[in-house]
């Protein structure tokens, strides 16, 4: 944070931009899953942030507890979280697709409580923080300001996942299936698409993405059982700004929220959260379908 009265230099602005980007890309992975699940199945999953929390705990267990390689830990955390998402979809979420959205929010809120307490049973209520993997130790110097390698990795990972997802949805046959199911479930079914399977796969994927984001966060943010409720609000803000169910919108929304928090710290110290809530409210009032949504 800059000293009071000091001039704002270009280097500060750029450095803070990088900080914002790394924040954006961590949030993007969470918001992407949230918005896909909403776009395809029509469920707004309040417990999606809890997948992030589970991913972080799994990542910690694999990396610290079992002393696995960092990459394997990330993969393992994503898979485990994805499987939990799949189980929840098969046993519970599929029963609420047709319910009023109020009930979806309430039921999935119940899951925040359940998953939070289960995590407390397994991992205790201590804050857990993993050491930085050796590959990423150290800083890079950008215009005289230092910036951790690890944040660069997070930025790269977010962009990579985004590009892969976009390619899969645009080009692959599975992308066509997902898009068809999102557009019109009945029509897709009559074309012989197994929509129930599609929903399950989407939930698996969405939960795995959140789990990956959570596992990636363990070297720079301590995990505890409250992390789910904190992250879900950010993810909601992002999906609302970009348009509910809109994947490109979620990417743009994540950029806006990440950069707004980073520059908010610079220009309105202490009020960065307020700035983001204002952004969310303004978008909802002026263009409730989101910045990239269509009427």
């Amino acid at each position, binding site marked *: 944070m800059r000293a009071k009265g000091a001039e704002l230099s270009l280097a500060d602005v750029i450095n803070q931009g990088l900080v914002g980007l790394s924040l954006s890309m961590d949030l993007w992975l969470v918001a992407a899953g949230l918005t*896909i699940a*909403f*776009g*395809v199945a*029509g469920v*707004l999953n309040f417990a999606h942030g809890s997948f992030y929390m589970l991913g972080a705990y799994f990542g910690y267990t694999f990396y610290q507890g079992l002393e696995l390689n960092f990459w394997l830990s990330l993969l393992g955390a994503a898979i485990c979280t994805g499987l939990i998402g799949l189980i929840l979809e098969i046993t*519970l979420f599929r*029963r*609420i697709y*047709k*319910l*009023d*959205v*109020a*009930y979806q*929010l*309430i*039921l999935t*809120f*119940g*899951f*925040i*409580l*359940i998953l*939070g*307490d*289960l995590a*407390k*049973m397994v991992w205790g209520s201590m804050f857990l923080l993993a050491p930085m993997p050796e590959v990423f130790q150290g800083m890079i110097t950008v215009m005289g300001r230092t910036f951790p390698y690890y944040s660069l990795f997070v930025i790269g990972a977010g962009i990579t996942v985004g590009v892969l997802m976009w390619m899969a*949805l645009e080009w692959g046959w599975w992308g066509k299936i*997902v*898009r068809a199911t*999102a*557009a019109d479930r009945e029509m897709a079914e009559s074309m012989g698409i197994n929509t129930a399977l599609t929903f399950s796969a989407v939930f698996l994927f969405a939960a795995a993405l959140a789990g990956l984001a959570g596992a990636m966060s363990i070297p720079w943010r301590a995990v505890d059982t409250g992390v789910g*409720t904190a992250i879900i*609000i950010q993810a*909601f*803000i992002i999906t*609302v700004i970009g*348009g*509910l*169910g*809109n*994947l490109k*919108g979620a990417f743009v929304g994540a950029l806006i929220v990440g950069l707004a928090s980073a520059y908010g710290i610079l220009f309105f110290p*202490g*009020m960065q*959260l*307020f700035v983001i*809530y*204002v952004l*969310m*409210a303004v978008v*909802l*009032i002026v263009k*409730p*379908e989101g910045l990239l*949504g*269509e*009427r």
Partner: protein
Amino acid sequence: MLEQKQTSTMWPHRLVRYTLFGIIIMVLSIIPWAFGSYGTWLGSNVLILALFAVSFNLLLGYSGLLSFGQAGFFAVGAYVCAKVLIAVPWLILGLASGVLAAALLSLVLGCLCVRHTRIYFSMLTLAFGMMIHSVIWKWRAVTGGDDGLVNVPRPPLSLGLFQLELNNDVTYYYFLLLCTAIGVYLLWRLVNSPLGLALQGLRDSEQRVAFSGLSVYRYRLVAFTIAGSVAGFAGTLMVMLTKYAYPDMAHWTFSAEPIMATLMGGVSTFAGPIVGVLILYFAKEIIVRFTEYWLLLLGSTVVVLVLGFRGGVVMALQQSLPFLATPAGEGGTGTVSEGETNPTTGGTRPDAEPPPADRSSL
């Protein structure tokens, strides 16, 4: 003739209900005497939360709007009351200013919120509630930041010559009982008034009400403002109980408490939220003695309720004890047959195909 016949069949119901109301008040009156200081403390909390939950259900159950920001108005009432009482220890002034502040704020925010329904309404109220939370958190000079406002006085209630000392927790409990009873009674009258009927009509079919010439916007705004004001009132009562105002009063997880209480008791019945708060608090009291994982049980209960028991406890009671049910035509706060079709009682979405704005292409 027909008119007469209706009133005559209605009377026993009304009689039963008023008798029940009297019994409940009597049972609540003996709590400090029967359960000591801890029971009084718990009862005080239940009373305040019950009022909060009933006001919340004016939005969810009667207007079909799920607000995730009611804690914001609760906190505004609490903080304004606390500030005023710290400056001028005068009870009526503190209460009035807290309620007025919550009313004004909910009127202004309501103008923006009630343009939307469904998920957009929920998200917008969530945003405003959290905005209030972050202002309270950061505006240290006024709100005390994360320390909150401590040592809020609880001045005596003075009405002209008559003065009642409230500093005793038992006396304050009876004061709360009086406030809650009045508040709940007024809300009961409200939901059975033409305004209440219009709101329920809006909940079930917005178009039909609009076609009959009523202003959808104005009715929802009135409901939102009333709900916000009563939430603020509950906040003022709470801050005088605990003598402490803290930022988490405005956090969205506190907004979730009346939601869960309402869901447990039953969304489509007037008494649902009250019963829900009772169940919530007493179940918690018992469960935390056996296990620290109270939230796990609470969450599981929520899941079971949503999946299989959406009418809530009160509706189940009404089904087994028909004389408790509100006769249709007297406000219709949820007879069973009606419950099957409207969205807040947990039926399927009335418009199975959501509007296109809901699901943009991926």
